[in-house]
């Protein structure tokens, strides 16, 4: 139904500790390498952002909780590399590998700037007609779950499952993570921003009238 990453609304995490602004973005030297390695390996094009999110989410709750953020990234990177057959368990255990010829899609320095500046758009042409428009009232699926793969990836957080909100933005069709994370194709469908009353979500809002919005795919929603 849900996994350890799905923590919106959870009690007990203690205060948020802001850092001074203008600080360098990496607290420790190895954080820099973890980010650069993850991006460089991702540029091989062997997995989607949805797959990489799912592999992070599939860490055991114990590991996910004790790991710092970039440790989660590294653990998922190791998982993805083994899953795709790019690196073996034996190589991970040895901490080394026999030299190999460069991968045909190896990320070269000259490609980095243009690639990062271009990004990867997620909008697609879709044959799924929009069912909703701004102003419509919609109800989210209950429970939050992937209906294609048991225990699979979904972007409907548990805290917003089974609630009624109002569509406020329509984004066109986007790649559908619930399918794409599992190699089932991009299956694009309409994406909306839906606003929920905080009092409805939590039973009691900090202040009446506060709202929470989420970006939700059409198949998470039904008319309300």
């Amino acid at each position, binding site marked *: 139904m849900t996994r350890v990453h799905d923590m919106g609304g959870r009690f007990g995490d203690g*205060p948020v500790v802001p850092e001074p602004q203008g600080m360098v973005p990496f607290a*420790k030297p190895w954080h820099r390498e973890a980010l650069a390695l993850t991006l460089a390996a991702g540029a091989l094009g062997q997995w989607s952002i949805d797959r990489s999110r799912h592999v992070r989410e599939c860490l055991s709750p114990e590991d996910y909780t004790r790991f710092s953020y970039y440790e989660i990234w590294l653990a998922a990177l190791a998982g993805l590399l083994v899953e795709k057959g790019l690196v073996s368990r034996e190589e991970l255990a040895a901490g080394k590998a026999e030299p190999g010829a460069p991968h045909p899609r190896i990320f070269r*320095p000259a490609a980095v700037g243009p690639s990062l500046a271009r990004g990867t758009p997620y909008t697609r042409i879709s044959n799924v007609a929009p069912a909703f428009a701004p102003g419509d009232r919609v109800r989210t699926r209950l429970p939050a779950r992937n209906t294609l793969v048991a225990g699979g990836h979904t972007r409907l957080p548990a805290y917003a499952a089974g609630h009624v909100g109002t569509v406020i933005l329509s984004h066109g069709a986007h790649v559908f993570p619930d399918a794409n994370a599992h190699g089932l194709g991009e299956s694009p469908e309409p994406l909306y921003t839906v606003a929920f009353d905080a009092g409805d979500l939590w039973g009691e809002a900090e202040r009446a009238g506060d709202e929470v919005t989420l970006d939700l795919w059409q198949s998470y929603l039904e008319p309300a």
Partner: protein
Amino acid sequence: MPHDDHDHPHSLLPSDPALRVKALETILVAKGLVDPAAMAVILETYETKVGPHLGARVVARAWADPRFRALLLKNANAAMAELGVTGRQGEHVVAVENTPGTHNMVVCTLCSCYPWPLLGIPPAWYKSDAYRARAVREPRKVLAEFGVTLPEGQKVRVWDSTAEVRYLVVPMRPEGTEGMDEAALATLVTRDSMIGTGLPLAP
């Protein structure tokens, strides 16, 4: 398929994370899967080129130029492109404007989605369990931890970034800034004011 083998490959790597990243890098470079020179360019990009100063330029332009502000709120990527701001994790940006009636605040409860081309790499607190868990339920308590108290009558709208849409908060232009040019205005626009956990500096 889900990935519940409980025999995760990461457990084969050294337990010290600094050694873990080094071991992975050694393997990937040896196998021709990663070029360390590309890693250096990635880091140069996010340590020296892409950061919150770019988002600040966009906000300052919106404060100074009504045409730009209207475009930013209608089609943020088109407005950003006028200033050369594009890229990864900012392919689909929506700019949300603070008003006397509404204060906007951005979170990603499921992971760490963040508008990289505008704000750079997210700070650790943005990715922390505490922020991810609490921003949606008790945004005003979280704001207080940033030293921010909202006026009576201003509602909070928290944007949980659950898709590939990225949100930029456009804070309200501070009073006393009439006559300031765009470059001077940009110095008032903090990173946190564009996430919604802070307010712009006073002139």
